[in-house]
């Protein structure tokens, strides 16, 4: 493919593509990502819709927080079980809300590390108001114009500081 046909002007997401250059040689070009430039809004729309439906199920007690994060992070049961170092049947129990309270705190911390969240996020749903609408912020912190929400770790592995900053 010729360089002019493959190059995408999009600074936020850069990558290296190989292409035919103007002089006929083949080589690398630094380009923007075609799919991020053109379709990132669609990606986030689907992610938000998925999150919304899972949060509803979480609130209704139909799924456990482990199921929520596993689905959002696109992990299979087998892969998550291997990462937590438990058998798959045990993991399946943890996906059910009735078994979630029986998980040891130390094991819950292992799950939290895999999902890269503080343990406390298994027990709360953060809601923020944006464009006159309350939206869930449980998965990844929403970037907002006026406020900044950060969860800062402490030396105590189970304690996190949730900092809400008025920018």
């Amino acid at each position: 493919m010729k360089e002019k046909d493959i190059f995408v002007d999009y600074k936020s997401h850069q990558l290296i593509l190989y292409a035919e250059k103007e002089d006929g040689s083949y080589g690398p070009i630094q380009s923007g990502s075609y799919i991020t430039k053109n379709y990132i809004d669609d990606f986030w729309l689907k992610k938000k819709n998925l999150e919304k439906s899972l949060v509803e199920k979480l609130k209704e007690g139909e799924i456990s927080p482990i199921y929520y994060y596993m689905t959002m992070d696109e992990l299979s049961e087998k892969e998550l079980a291997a990462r937590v170092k438990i058998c798959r049947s045990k993991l399946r129990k943890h996906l059910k809300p009735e078994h979630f309270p029986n998980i040891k705190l130390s094991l819950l911390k292992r799950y939290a590390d895999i999902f890269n969240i503080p343990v406390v996020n298994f027990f709360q749903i953060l809601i923020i108001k944006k464009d006159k609408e309350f939206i869930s912020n449980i998965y990844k912190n929403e970037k907002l114009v006026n406020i900044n929400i950060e969860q800062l770790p402490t030396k105590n592995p189970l304690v996190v500081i949730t900092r809400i900053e008025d920018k």
Partner: protein
Amino acid sequence: MSEITFNHKMAAHCESGSVTALLNHAGLEISEPMVFGISSGIFFGYLKGPRFAFPVFIVRSKPGQIRKNISKRLGVKYHTASFKNPQKGEDELDRLLEQNIPVAVQVDFYYMNYILSHERVHINAHFINIVGKKGTKYIVSDSYFPKLVEFDRESLMKGRFAEGSMAPKGFMFYPTYVPENIDYEKAIRTGIKKASYYMLKLPIPFLGIKGIRKFADSVVEWPKYARDIEHLSHEIMKINVLLEDQGTGGAGFRFIYATFLREASEMIGHSGLLEMSKRMMEIGDGWREISLFTAKIGKNRDLGQDRLKELGNIIRKRADVEEVFFRDLQNIIK
């Protein structure tokens, strides 16, 4: 505190990029396409099963093979190490950096928090070069990031010692010996022969050309694995990401392989490879067409059986042309 003078360059792919950068640092002038081609990086596999949340395909050889094959075919020697104890893995990395040795480490890509969040997925086969340390921050040269980046210790440790399939176990490597005289012709021929063999002859129904056909046949069944239309759209659009954005150099490594063949033809004076290079570039154009098609139908939620069959057909066409291509390639390199 240590910081090595390291020429950071973005690269198409993390493993070929990190191997190339370390070889360049060690004084061997070699390009990423040459590393990729000599190590027989090009491949195809269609994978599904309990390990995967959804069927997936791969377009390159197994992680680790690029370094191993470069070692075998160019005579480069590497020091490699894995660690059961994360503290020992961290101490060893720090010790090497103190000695001004840049080191490649294997990590779970998910924890590389300098990369945009929508790109990051759990995959234990990402390679980065660590080229220094400032306080508790490591200086990272990542092929997927435009510049050197300071990276927090905690995230690096999480990435290096993630569990699961292909768990990195703190794996690290760096070259210890680069031969002065390299028989590039032999290395190129071996690289091409092996790649052709893997694409044509592996007796496994989901690998190589058979894998592309399996993918073509299976994509029409994807709706049964999806939760809903948005999930299906997401997975279909991931075809574009896997072919273009996840470190392939475009068209599922076909463009970088075309570049390798051209470079190889010049290096060993083989005009047949130049012709094959042009053909591979055209094959890549066809893969690019698949990428654009999946992005379009995914966005439009145009994912009925007819459209998926159409997708299957254009994927199958790639199998047909690649089968002829690799046979011809095998024949001219004998």
